[in-house]
């Protein structure tokens, strides 16, 4: 019996010493405030800064970045003000380590804003939310090293989510929703439960909570994706392209499905401009289809839904991506100057 008591005491000492070494404390409101702000920004920014509202790319980039930066500066100010108030209320000071960690946090947030601006000009936007998950996961992980062990686990989960979203080639809207739920639901939940004694004393509870947290973040995204896929199926009967072209303008026809047969060609209008190009260079290429494609139209315009052969109905925003873009230029005596542009059109993610 006494050996059990001695073991328990030793374990309690280990736990409390580990807790004592982690001298930084993240306030509950910090995770709630930053989490809700990030989720709100993702929802708002993609709705406000559209191609239609801001057709000029650099204007859209600068306006969106200024808006995001302003909101985040306000959030940072509100956060630090509330931390100081809480500490004053408890007659405590903010430790030196905590102040340095706060600076690291702000730097990582600033880096995300800069990456966002850069991606407007240099591309790579597909990876943006994965990078957000990885960088803010890193922020949590670093904070967790000096405060709560649960934070290091949450940080690791976010980093893994970010890496998995890229390596599994998840569709962009899925990564976007994953980021929204991670911040909008995952962070406030983390903030509200972080001080629970069970999470600080037992690894078993921390792992169980991590599983619960992951499922809470991932399952709604999966549900949204599935519901979107079910909504994808148009009711109209497919008609061949020749029949569609013969029909002329259809009045009152809300939904149509047109089949482009395998072997048919689709013209691709290419427009090139640049600082060494004179005006707008327009040319038309031909794309030869290897498989039939059904295209859904709503009120006479493609609505983004398509189906390859007998496969499932897909959505342009989820499953259509241009990747592996490369451009090489050569100059030889036989052909003279030549620019070769290669790209791969993927409908499988």
């Amino acid at each position: 019996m006494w050996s059990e008591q001695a073991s328990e005491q030793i374990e309690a000492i280990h736990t409390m010493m580990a807790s004592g070494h982690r001298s930084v404390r993240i306030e509950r409101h910090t995770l709630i405030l930053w989490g809700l702000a990030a989720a709100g920004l993702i929802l708002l920014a993609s709705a406000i800064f559209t191609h239609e509202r801001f057709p000029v790319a650099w204007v859209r980039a600068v306006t969106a970045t200024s808006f995001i930066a302003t909101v985040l500066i306000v959030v940072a100010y509100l956060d630090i003000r509330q931390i100081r108030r809480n500490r004053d209320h408890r007659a405590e000071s903010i430790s030196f380590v905590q102040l340095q960690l706060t600076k690291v946090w702000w730097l990582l947030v600033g880096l995300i804003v800069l990456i966002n601006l850069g991606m407007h000009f240099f591309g790579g936007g597909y990876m943006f939310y994965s990078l957000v998950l990885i960088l803010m996961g890193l922020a949590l992980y670093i904070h967790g090293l000096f405060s709560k062990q649960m934070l290091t686990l949450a940080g690791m989960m976010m980093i893994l989510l970010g890496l998995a979203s890229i390596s599994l080639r998840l569709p962009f809207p899925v990564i976007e929703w994953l980021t929204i739920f991670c911040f909008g639901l995952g962070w406030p939940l983390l903030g509200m439960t972080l001080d629970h004694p069970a999470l600080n004393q037992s690894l078993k509870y921390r792992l169980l909570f991590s599983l619960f947290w992951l499922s809470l973040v991932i399952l709604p995204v999966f549900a949204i994706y599935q519901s979107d896929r079910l909504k994808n199926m148009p009711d109209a009967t497919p008609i061949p392209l020749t029949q569609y072209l013969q029909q002329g303008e259809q009045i009152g026809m809300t939904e149509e499905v047109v089949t482009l047969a395998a072997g048919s060609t689709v013209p691709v209008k290419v427009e090139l401009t640049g600082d060494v190009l004179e005006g707008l260079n327009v040319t038309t290429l031909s794309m030869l289809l290897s498989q039939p494609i059904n295209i859904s139209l709503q009120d006479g315009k493609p609505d983004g839904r398509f189906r390859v052969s007998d496969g499932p109905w897909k959505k342009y925003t989820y499953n259509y991506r241009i990747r592996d873009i490369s451009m090489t230029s050569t100059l030889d005596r036989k052909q003279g100057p030549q620019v070769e542009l290669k790209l791969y059109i993927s409908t499988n993610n």
Partner: protein
Amino acid sequence: MDALSSPELNAILHQPVRTRIVAYLAARGETTFNELKQALDITDGNLDSHMKKLVSVEYIQSKKQAVKKGKQQTLYCLTEIGSREFENYIETLKRLLSPQFLQK
């Protein structure tokens, strides 16, 4: 012999809450009452009674530190006696768990 009544074990430290308080302070260096309360997840009254006990035997001491706007905060830390007794207590626990002792 029951460990609780073992003459080898320090009766002040061999109490779950007080063990945790001293272990936390040993790692943390110094801390406030509120931080301790949160780390231990116990009530003000419970913590206060154990702190008084530890202060009375000079295992821990308190000091005032100025915070912003003329406010002061009370910090608690282990004394030399407290640190030494805590190390002795851990050694005793380890001895009680050693194979030689378990075979007795």
